């Protein structure tokens, strides 16, 4: 089934299926929901305005993920530069985790936050791969296609990202 990106019906179909995936990828890369929404919107605007043809829905999905992950990485780099500037002026205060004796929901929220903070600490190339592996339904082959890297490269990055995450989370 061919997909014309500026055809309303085709767009709606792609949008419905891909938006949540895109939102998850971008959010877990940037750790900012508002920014993730903006980036997803921008990616879909480009998708619509370029009026492209895709052979399958997956091709459209890969294109959208590629565009939005590039936008996300640029934002993260910009944020990192800004943080470095701030760091030079002021030492970043260590945020001691405030463990409350709250409910299960609070615990889960806290765990989610810790995991996301651990992901934030990963170098970009590992972060992208592990986010796609854990938060989308894509396999190694599909991730390789999106990132234009080899499948064995994906495999190594997943392994190394998990190793880093394990190390970071064990320190918490």
């Amino acid at each position: 089934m061919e997909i014309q990106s500026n055809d309303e019906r085709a767009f709606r179909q792609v949008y419905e299926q891909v938006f949540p995936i895109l939102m998850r990828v971008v959010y877990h890369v940037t750790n900012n929901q508002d920014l993730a929404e903006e980036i997803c919107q921008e990616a879909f605007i480009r998708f619509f305005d370029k009026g492209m043809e895709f052979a399958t829905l997956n091709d459209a999905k890969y294109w959208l993920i590629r565009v939005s992950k590039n936008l996300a990485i640029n934002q993260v780099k910009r944020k990192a530069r800004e943080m470095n500037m701030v760091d030079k002026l002021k030492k970043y205060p260590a945020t001691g985790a405030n463990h409350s004796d709250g409910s299960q929901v609070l615990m889960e929220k806290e765990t989610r936050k810790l995991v996301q903070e651990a992901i934030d600490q990963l170098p970009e190339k590992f972060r992208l791969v592990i986010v796609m592996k854990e938060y989308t339904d894509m396999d190694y082959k599909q991730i390789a296609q999106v990132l234009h890297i080899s499948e064995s490269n994906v495999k190594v990055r997943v392994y190394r990202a998990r190793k880093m995450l394990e190390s970071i989370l064990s320190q918490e």
Partner: protein
Amino acid sequence: MCVDDELLNTYLDGELQEPWRTQVQEHLGYCNACRQRLEQLRALHQKVADAVLPDSEISARQDRVLQYFEKTRFSSSNKKMHIFRKKIQVRLVPALITSAAAFVVVFIGAFVLFGNSSQQGQEILPGVASQIDSAHIQQVTEVQQPSLDMFSLEQIVQHLDAMGYAVKLEVKAVTPLE
């Protein structure tokens, strides 16, 4: 020899190809240390996967962005307006400009030709105040071109019938008046 972490991760993700997959499975069957390590990796994977941004936090954003596209990109809601605007721009505007220009030309022409002569001016534009009386007032009715709107459906049918046409009426998507 035990299975290394890289292989275990690949196995965990269901991405390990044969014959290694079977070999790892066999090894896990008798090696406690590797089984434990696999469970640790599985727990880590689960912990990370559980931190996923939930659907509940996505749906409102998904609706909002879709609304943006409905307002700015989709044609179904804007199409009628668009064609209407186009008609005004393409057909009406030049026609209005032409008629306005013609009006101005006629006015200027009239003043150039007759503006200097008060005598002629009076003939063309007679003074109203002095000559207004019942003799000068004439009832003017609007001349109407006959159109179908002026006849009832019954009259039209009778007329067509009189002219020898066989008329068959069908009611389609009409709500009768109460």
